[in-house]
């Protein structure tokens, strides 16, 4: 803990946030935090969802996530060096969103709603008399650029459904921005391409199968049968790899069930 307190203190103003994550109940957690004198932020990952998504099998485990949301390091917290932080802190916002108040509060509100157009507009207004406006504007532009690039990458691998759904959501907040044209062009490509459209239809069916709850072994068996049926005739495609991963995950889930 002293190591993390120190990192938090040393690099907070430059853009680092240390966040403790636990899936344990709050009572004993609060006592432990007080006893260990941990001074950084912490929160509850109910049901261990994040822990599972990141494949954390033992504790402690930590991840360094760069300002664009990419994991750049993982390991025991004590083995994280100051040098590594210095390497990745470039471009991080010096003042976290929760401290944006007054005029910056308007930027924050629009950004959290997903309205990049209004948020960027507010940032531009603020920049006229406060240098923070420019920093905020650059951050927003960087996030927007990377979200568009992420969607293009998702489309490129072959997850047509994720790219299409993501583009539609992001588009809502891009009125008048050049990125809106990029996404509209992307959606147009999808809608005109027969093969992509067919894949998207299949991916929707896959998503529907994966929505069902897995409570008993019988549910798992039924899911595997449905997935294998969907797989027929598509082997070797990205869609097939999505199904295969789903089959593997379902089989693993089955081994953890008692009946």
């Amino acid at each position, binding site marked *: 803990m002293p190591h993390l307190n120190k*990192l938090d203190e040393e690099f907070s103003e430059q853009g680092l946030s240390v966040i403790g994550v636990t899936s344990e109940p709050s009572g004993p957690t609060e006592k432990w935090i007080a006893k260990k004198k941990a001074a950084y932020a912490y929160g*509850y990952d109910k049901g261990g969802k994040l*822990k599972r*998504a990141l494949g954390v099998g033992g504790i402690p485990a930590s991840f360094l996530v760069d300002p664009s949301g990419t*994991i750049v390091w993982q390991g025991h917290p004590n083995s994280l060096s100051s040098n590594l932080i210095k390497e990745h*802190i470039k471009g991080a916002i010096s003042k976290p969103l929760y401290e944006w108040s007054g005029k910056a509060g308007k930027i924050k509100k629009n950004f959290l709603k997903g309205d990049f157009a209004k948020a960027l507009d507010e940032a531009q207004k603020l920049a006229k008399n406060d240098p923070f406006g420019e920093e905020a504007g650059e951050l927003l532009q960087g996030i927007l650029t990377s979200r568009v690039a992420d969607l293009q990458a998702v489309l490129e691998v072959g997850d047509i459904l994720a790219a299409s759904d993501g583009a539609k959501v992001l588009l809502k907040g891009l009125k008048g921005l050049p990125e809106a044209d990029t996404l509209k062009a992307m959606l147009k490509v999808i809608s005109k391409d027969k093969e992509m459209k067919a894949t998207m239809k299949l991916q929707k069916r896959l998503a529907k199968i994966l929505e069902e709850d897995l409570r008993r072994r019988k549910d798992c068996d039924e899911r595997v049968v449905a997935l294998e049926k969907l797989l027929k005739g598509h082997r070797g495609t990205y869609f097939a790899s999505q199904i295969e991963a789903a089959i593997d995950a379902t089989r*693993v889930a089955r081994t953890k069930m008692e009946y």
Partner: protein
Amino acid sequence: MIAQILLASAGAFALPSNITPSKVGDKLPTVVLEGLAQTEATSYEEFTGRLVLLEFFAHW
């Protein structure tokens, strides 16, 4: 969305090392943190744009 569901279920098997397989280079999945304490932030989204060190801990 599918990728996220797969990630969430694929992580269910705990292998010997603390984190398997390596997630370096991957995008962080959607983070929902409840009851944020010792910060003014009320959701993980309010850490957007920061360099974040996530530390998984337990009180034992």
